[in-house]
């Protein structure tokens, strides 16, 4: 297996280090953009805007995952066979996520429709916890 280690030497050293720092920069920028979107989301924005922001954040998350797996874990530079045996099984997640989130949402709608008690319970506003916490202390 010394042969694999020796192969690493064929890479141009400077180019490899340059690529590492480039990917570091990309990951940092993506994270900062995510955080900026997160800070904007704290303000009162419409539900549609919020959804759009969340969608953007998910896309940025997948981009970050691609850079980590592709460059830091070196998968992009492996043989195509190896890439496929890792990536193709992970494609199951597409179905996995779609089906389960759809199912969760459907369960919520069904329960709200057929269990009015549960729905009315989930609409009662309660006091802030800090105020509730104070009460037993006062009794001590």
């Amino acid at each position, binding site marked *: *297996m*010394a042969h*694999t*280690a020796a192969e*690493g*030497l064929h*890479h141009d*050293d400077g180019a490899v*280090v340059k690529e*590492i720092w480039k990917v*570091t920069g990309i*990951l*940092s920028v993506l*994270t900062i953009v*995510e*955080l900026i*979107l*997160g*800070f904007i*989301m*704290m303000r009162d924005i419409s539900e549609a805007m919020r959804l759009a922001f*969340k969608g953007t*954040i*998910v896309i940025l*998350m997948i981009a*970050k*995952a691609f850079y*980590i797996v592709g460059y*830091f*874990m070196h998968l992009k530079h*492996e*043989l195509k*066979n*190896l890439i496929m*045996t*890792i990536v193709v*099984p*992970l494609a199951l*997640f597409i179905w*996995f*996520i779609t089906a*389960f*989130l759809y*199912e*969760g*949402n459907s*369960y*919520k709608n069904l*329960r*709200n429709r057929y269990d009015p008690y549960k*729905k009315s*319970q*989930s*609409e*009662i*506003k*309660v006091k*802030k*916890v800090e105020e509730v*916490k104070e009460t037993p202390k006062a009794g001590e």
Partner: protein
Amino acid sequence: MSTVTTATAPTKLWSGGKSPFNVEYGKLMMWYFLMSDAFTFGAFLISYGTIRFSSNGWPNPNEVFKSFPFAPEGVHAPLVFVSVMTFILIISSVTMVLAVHAGKKMDKNAVVFNLILTIIGGIAFLSCQAWEWTHLHSEGAWWGSNPFLNADGTQSSTNFTNYFFTITGFHGFHVFSGVVINIVMLIMTLMDKFEKRGHYLMIEKAGLYWHFVDLVWVFVFTCFYLI
């Protein structure tokens, strides 16, 4: 004989005599392990998503994760502490790549230096998480206990804290094992084990694991703190 093999190799990867993936056995198995681990974390996160989608209300992460160490009581600084944690993990991932790269060049000193930085990063992340857990626990949050209200002011279930502590706990456990693995790698490097073997492939495998830990944090961070 060997020249014949190399000449025909690109077209006949599967005809025997060479590794069709051109990676060492241990590294391939590390990839498969990480793939299975990805499914474990994926199942956790999808379960969290399903429950969240089936709930009428959910706590606002900006109201829950709003403190950082040494801050005065009642400070409202959402996303600040978790961004610090995220950057710590990204930077430790970078030092790990540099350690792997130094290993390929058989540069022992650079491997040691970058491994130490990676270990420090890992310990720093774990300390941040320990502080965050302690703080949340002091506020009354734990498995089976949720002091936070839903974003719309209604009563929240314990699903939020259960998922938060289980998933970040499982991730934290991975970070902890990663730090232990990196310490073992550091000791082996200092003992010249890899110099004697003639290659630093072991560091590459540890590196794969460490990057995976960073990768999972990208998802955990997004799912719990951002959206």
